[in-house]
């Protein structure tokens, strides 16, 4: 955003067509976002990286102690088996599940794009979860999943007494229970993005394809989907980022207890908890940052390289 806006500021000729006032306006328009971007994204990111090499409890009056790579070492030793490794696993499962949810969202968008009867009603219904706040979503699914009086167990006539399923407590399945809730929300979001993209596809493309004798799947995969490229990139980035930074639903539903711990939970527990271990939490956050940027960079790079 900022880089795109800062280019016009550069003057190529001495006798610029831009008046002094124009230049001032442009400088302000490019400058403010740049300052905000640097102050709120790059400065904290760099500070986090610096903090990850320290031991500190987050209190101003307590000195910050340099400990070198100690935090990273303990992430990969003491905290590896119960915390870091499960978190990595759960984040990857999350990414996989969200990818599937994205495909379902695409499918729904394609179906709704066919102007079927009551399309608007379906759109609203499927988009509704996105409108709800995550706290509400978490609470609703708790009511569905509870072992004693949850909707599913009531339906099956089971409870904790006769072998009911503890959807949110059982560490073998609670991640998947939460993933259903997360996907329920994600599908609607992705559907709307694709729907907007599909409406913008030039209808003549379809006509041309059908005149050329392309079948329906061929038209979709060979003509429509490539035409949706800008949307595809947005959706892919949204899916990957949402999966890596996922936190809220897990925190609301299980507080990141066994079976559902995500990387973000490790960061949160150590930075926000009662005795803050800011250095250790920052080290976990830096790992998360590295993984996220790795994913996003490689994806964007391969995408833009193709399009050139």
């Amino acid at each position: 955003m900022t880089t795109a806006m800062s280019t016009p500021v550069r003057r190529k000729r001495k006798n610029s067509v831009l008046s002094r006032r124009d230049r001032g306006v442009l400088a302000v328009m490019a400058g403010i976002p740049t300052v905000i971007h640097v102050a709120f994204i790059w400065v904290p990111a760099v500070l986090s990286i610096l903090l990850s090499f320290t031991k500190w409890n987050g209190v101003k009056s307590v000195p910050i102690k340099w400990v070198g790579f100690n935090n990273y070492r303990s992430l990969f030793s003491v905290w590896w088996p119960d915390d870091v490794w499960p978190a990595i696993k759960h984040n990857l499962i999350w990414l996989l599940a969200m990818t599937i949810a994205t495909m379902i969202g695409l499918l729904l968008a394609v179906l709704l794009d066919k102007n079927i009867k009551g399309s608007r009603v379906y759109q609203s219904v499927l988009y509704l979860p996105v409108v709800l706040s995550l706290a509400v979503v978490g609470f609703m699914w708790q009511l569905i999943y509870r072992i004693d009086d949850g909707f599913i167990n009531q339906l099956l006539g089971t409870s904790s007494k006769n072998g009911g399923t503890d959807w949110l407590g059982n560490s073998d399945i609670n991640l998947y229970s939460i993933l259903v809730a997360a996907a329920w929300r994600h599908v609607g979001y992705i559907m709307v993005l694709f729907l907007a993209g599909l409406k913008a596809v030039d209808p003549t493309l379809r006509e041309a394809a059908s005149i050329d004798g392309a079948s329906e799947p061929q038209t979709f995969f060979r003509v429509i989907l490539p035409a949706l490229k800008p949307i595809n990139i947005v959706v892919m980035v949204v899916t990957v980022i949402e999966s890596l930074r996922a936190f809220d639903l897990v925190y609301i539903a299980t507080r990141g207890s066994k079976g559902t711990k995500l990387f973000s939970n490790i960061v949160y527990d150590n930075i926000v908890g009662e005795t803050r271990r800011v250095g250790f939490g920052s080290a976990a956050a830096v790992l998360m940052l590295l993984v996220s940027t790795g994913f996003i960079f490689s994806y964007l790079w391969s995408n833009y390289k193709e399009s050139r």
Partner: protein
Amino acid sequence: MGNHEDQGSSDMGISMPSVSRRTFLAGTAGVAAVAALAACGSDKKAAPTTAATTAAGVTTTSAAPEVTTTSAAAAAKKTITFGSNQSDAKPKNAVQAMMDAYKAKSGNDVKINTVDHNTYQEQITSYLGGTPDDVYSWFAAFRMQSLVNQNLGGDISDVWGGLKNQTDGVKAASTAADGKQYFVPLYYYPWAVFFRKSLFAEKGYTAPKTLAEFKALGDKMKADGLTPIAFGNDGKWPAMGTFDYLNLRTNGFKFHTELMAGKQAWDSAEVKAVFTTWAELLPYHQAGASARKWEDAAASLVKKESGMYTMGMFVSSQFKNEDLGDLDFFPFPEINPAHGQDSLEAPIDGYMMAPSPKDAEGAKSLLAFLASGDAANAYLKIDPGNLACATDADTSGYNDLQKKGLELCKGAKNVTQFLDRDTLPAFAGPAGEAFDAFLQKPGDIDTILKNLAAKAKEIFA
């Protein structure tokens, strides 16, 4: 945390809370005796100090401050902000009643800011590091010490200078390693195994004394279609109470405090023995505990679906007033005859002052009131699941449960606070997670303890 070593006593790491425990015993034993004295009003005169605004208020309550609009009275009216973690209905009303009593007495206004109990604890440092309320709810001993270490508590030694109604044990639990007080107590509550008298009478159950009897009773309850032991571990602290008792009964008070101080290994044979016993008791516990709130587990006891519940006495806040008389308890059963039932878990809850409150004078006046018998009376009248720390509190109004709780405290040889107050808070989190992991997969206990021991080593280093 370095403060502990400064004391350099024989008892290094946990010198502060261990002193509090030993003396706290003496303190509780004195409660009833001093309470009798208090009835004669002997304490009332000891009030005039810096913190006397409220205590002295006893005599000035009759003067309605609005009518006598002297300039002094108008200037004295303050608004004190108060952070509360009492989010359940009954305790919340009790806090309100206590603050109303303070308002009536001092003429000051109190703005209560209530936050969900678990959230409050998880976010305490962010809350206190931002713009905290003048006075806030917290816990005694190590939990207080931990905030003091982070400079998140204000020194209120001058308030304590004016307090004549607190026992030495309670004072020790309110004193940090630097010898200053940072905490005023309101109440404490013993942990025990709670049950409904009517259910026991109806089915002919008797309170078990030993582990074998405990299990036998569990079998009987199962045969009667009951869930023997209610259990809900959302928030991960309820399991700590069970662990504390199993460890105290199996390995004794000394081992327990050493374990809490990081001086015993978590993967030792002693700790493993605790989990072996726990694993034997698990089939008697309510299934699916991980995601269940303690209030929901209590509800099963109220509804007579569960027979027993290992909990703090505050469990009574989940009972309707008319059912309260039916609630009873027995001390956690004996496991190792060498230790019998000699240890009791009885955490103290109370209040601290922000490090730089907007109105220090007002905050201290409120804290002095909170330590008074009047505050305890106002609170316990609505939420009678606790016992007053103030010796001048009115114990004649105690219900049967409170009276029995008081007896239990007097009979205890050793008193502990609670796992998350007796150990470093940074360790309490991983310990809670390890217990949760054990409840999920009891068979994995060796790995769980090995990993927990490694974490303990790192955190206590």
